[in-house]
């Protein structure tokens, strides 16, 4: 019997992966990316004449309730209408039995590609924009749980989109008690989500919080704060977190303190909201003191000088001129 070449086997595998779009309004265009649970395809919505991204599971009856997880991701995205969260258009099951989710097709760059040319202030502003949709989601009781640079896309017009909410879960809203109606409204959805019990670790190493890495059931939105801190570290050093002490040597001390506070092992020691983290970044950008770092008197003077350099120079010139006049008058 003649054996098949690797090339033919690869082609056959690719062919098997092709989703069966019969009976749907989508036309397959090309393969975009693949992951552990499925693949993402570029397709055309024949009804609305637009390009969409189809996330399709590899198997019709996957283990670990992946089909339920994909559907829950679609439901979570449907409940989170925000310019910074990639919108879902449709979800269901294909003719071949595989679950699918149809989302907006984002043309752009990954975070890692985009930040290559950015300066420090622009990188910090970018992180503020990544934190916005998270703060929005947290306020509604949703936790992303898989934030990492690969899951942030920058669109062609500079729009920032947080992607891949496949591991998201409904937690406790970060809003005050008087505003918990939204979280209460989505609580029934939690019953349909697959459980991630004790000891079951979901997330990405380096970007996931210690409590999530331990497989704790009771992770809350502060696990995303840790991931934001890890992304900030990546954006500032170009290195994956976990190497913070070595890679942060060139980082300004207040920035390092912000990263360390966001990535504190104890959730109570972290920023208690994404907005709190972005506020500290805004303080840093405007030359104001940051809450994460207690500066020395000398550092404070240096910061104030840097903030008002021209004014200090003008007053110095004036005083020097006055001194010169006094000396000349004494002659």
């Amino acid at each position, binding site marked *: 019997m003649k054996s098949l070449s690797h090339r033919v086997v690869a082609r056959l595998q690719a062919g098997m992966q092709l989703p069966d779009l019969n009976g749907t309004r989508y036309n397959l265009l090309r393969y975009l990316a693949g992951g552990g649970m499925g693949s993402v395809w570029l397709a055309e919505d024949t009804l609305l004449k637009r390009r969409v991204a189809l996330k399709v599971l590899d198997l019709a009856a996957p283990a670990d309730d992946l089909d339920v997880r994909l559907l829950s991701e679609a439901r979570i995205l449907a409940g989170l209408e925000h310019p910074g969260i990639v919108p879902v258009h449709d979800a269901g099951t294909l003719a071949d039995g595989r679950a699918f989710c149809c989302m907006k097709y984002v043309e752009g760059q990954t975070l890692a590609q985009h930040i290559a040319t950015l300066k420090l202030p622009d990188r910090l502003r970018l992180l503020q924009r990544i934190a916005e949709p998270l703060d929005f989601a947290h306020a509604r009781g949703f936790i992303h749980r898989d934030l990492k640079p690969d899951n942030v896309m920058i669109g062609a017009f500079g729009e920032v989109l947080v992607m891949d909410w496949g591991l998201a879960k409904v937690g406790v809203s970060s809003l005050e008690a008087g505003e918990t109606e939204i979280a209460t409204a989505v609580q029934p959805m939690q019953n349909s989500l697959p459980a991630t019990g004790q000891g079951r670790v979901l997330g990405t190493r380096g970007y996931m919080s210690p409590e999530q890495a331990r497989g704790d059931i009771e992770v809350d939105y502060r696990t995303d704060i840790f991931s934001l801190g890890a992304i900030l570290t990546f954006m500032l050093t170009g290195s994956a977190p976990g190497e913070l002490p070595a890679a942060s040597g060139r980082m300004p001390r207040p920035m390092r303190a912000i990263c360390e506070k966001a990535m504190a092992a104890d959730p109570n020691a972290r920023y208690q909201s994404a907005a709190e983290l972005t506020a500290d970044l805004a303080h840093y950008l405007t030359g104001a003191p940051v809450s994460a770092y207690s500066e020395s008197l000398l550092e404070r003077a240096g910061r104030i000088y840097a903030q008002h350099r021209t*004014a200090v120079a*003008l007053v110095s*010139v*004036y005083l020097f*001129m006055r001194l010169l006049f006094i000396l000349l008058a*004494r002659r």
Partner: protein
Amino acid sequence: MNKIVLGLALGAVLGAFDGMTAWFTPEARAEIVGIVVGSTVKGIIAGVLIGVFARKVHSLALGIVFGLAVGLILAFLVAYLQHGYYFQIMLPGGMVGLIVGYATQKYGPVTQPRRA
């Protein structure tokens, strides 16, 4: 602190300081009080004018030019009344105007134009 108050305060402080430096000129020491008061009033007038300008015009370059011009004109008037010391009076006066012009443009809340 709005721009007019900032200009007034800064003009007064710098004007007073400017006047006090006359103490180091022996022939002017006897009239130090009058010089300090006059210089402070000059600083206040310059500060208010520059502050009003900063409130109307939001331009760092124009603010500095206007401040310099106001400082120089007021200092010229003082020097003219004293019949001399043009350089010693006009240079610091212009400098004070320039500093106040810069500060009022850079600091203090920016007022938005009113909508109908």
